[in-house]
């Protein structure tokens, strides 16, 4: 019961934190932000590993293994594609101009 209350407290605080974190984000960053948070929920891979590690029957082994593959795709693909997207935002050209002038 005590653990549940702690979990509930963490849930509520994290939820408010999540709401507050994304206040005014320029449109420019909506897609990268969605993509990065998408990668963060790849934390489900942790759940898949825990379940698979305790598997002692064929069903759980098979389902758990598929879950690990899917979770790893979510994490690695998610961060990778976000990095590619953001790699395209180059620093403003102004600075370069100043150096030239």
């Amino acid at each position, binding site marked *: 019961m005590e653990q549940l209350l702690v979990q509930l407290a963490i849930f509520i605080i994290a939820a408010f934190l999540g709401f507050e974190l994304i206040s005014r984000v320029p449109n420019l960053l909506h897609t990268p932000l969605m993509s990065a948070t998408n990668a963060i929920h790849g934390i489900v891979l942790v759940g898949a590993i825990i379940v698979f590690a*305790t598997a002692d029957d064929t069903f759980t082994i098979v389902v758990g293994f598929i879950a690990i593959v899917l979770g790893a795709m979510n994490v690695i693909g998610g961060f990778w594609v976000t990095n590619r997207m953001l790699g395209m935002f180059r620093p403003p050209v102004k600075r370069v101009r100043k150096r030239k002038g």
Partner: protein
Amino acid sequence: MQVATFLAYLVAAVLFITGIRRLRKPGTARSGNTIAAFGMVIALVATFLVVEVDAAWVWLLIGVGILLGGVLGAASAQMVPMTAMPQMVAAFNGVGGGCIALVALSEFYQGAAETWVAVISGLLTVVIGSVSFAGSIVAFTKLQELAFTGSVVFPLQQVLNALIFVGILLLSANVLADGAIVEAVGAPFLSPLVSLYILFAASLVLGVLFVIPIGGADMPIVISLLNAFTGLAAAASGFVLGNYALLIGGTLVGASGTILTRLMSGALGRPLGKIIFAGITATATQKGDQQEDREVHDASPGEVGEYLSEEANKIVIVPGYGLAVAQAQGPMHDLMETLESRGKEVLFGIHPVAGRMPGHMNVLLTEAGVPYDKLYDLEDINPEFDDTDAAIIVGANDVVNPAANDPEQDTPISGMPILEVEKAKRVIFVKRSLSPGFAGVDNPLFYDTEKTMMLFSDAKQGLQEVVEAVKSA
């Protein structure tokens, strides 16, 4: 849970939060993503320390699974063209939802969900995760134009949705009551586990039905919503497993994803409720009277080039999805450089729905080498049109259509904020034909022969010809 693992999870949570914070500004965004990824590595390593594994082959399979998924994910992320990025995000979201639904299924199968809190959380995980998985896959096929393109509606869709929803509630109650509910209704006994499998299947169907009636233009918002769903499912599974990494990470994504969805739908002028209940309110959209044989000013690239080089000083370019499809970012960049070398001011006005996702057009243009401080949001560019000499619209229509602001017309885009190009001295459309855009609403600007020049051409070819014309003028 070991103290070390708990502390490591907290560190990971701090890194996630720092990462998201940095993702709010273009200059720090990339490092934010790296920081969040680092947090993920810490969370995973901490998990390896805490799991108790009795056989080496289990470790081996975990390694193989991560390697397999990692290679698949990295390869698709690396190879996907930037124009197809929205469906890539949908796909990664889908696999995450699928993963967590399977985790919850295994939990039930192993009998790990003992308390009623764990059972309810587990049920939520299965339902939300499956809806997110199936919905994301449908969103992917829509954007990739494989299937379900446009709004798919069929008779009695709402009734079917409602029935499935009631069915899901009933099955959930049956799982909670250890199989007593379905029997009470008079049906044969259904064990909790079998109920769960049916629940899983029904949730998948619900996910498909939820997304198919929603049109392609609203897909970004749907993907963002499903992203928040997956986060929520991850958080719910955190309750089942008593795992704080899942709990915090999932909740952060669930909450920030919800806000992001609202931000997006606000930017697109599409109320969230209207999108979600598309299947319920769907009616055949009024295509409007087809305007035929109305006169337009059919301009040649030479004429456009001449005007740009001789009379225009301040030029605003409005790129649309047509630009992305024609892969005309390169010529667009050339045009900018050519005009700037003549001492002209060139800005880009990016509508929130330009491209297929908010921010999508920015990515495409920066990929072509346009510096991002030249890209102006809707609110920032609209005051600029007053003293603009030429607004060049490439492969876009809906986002500059004044009909959206006309209170006398009821169109699918009514109320959507638009780029007010009609305030510029001259308006130049580079467009393949007079066909109205995605929303099917005719644009009165086309027929303003005094102000508007229509350059009928493929975006890439048209822009290349205009660049040549400016150079030789």
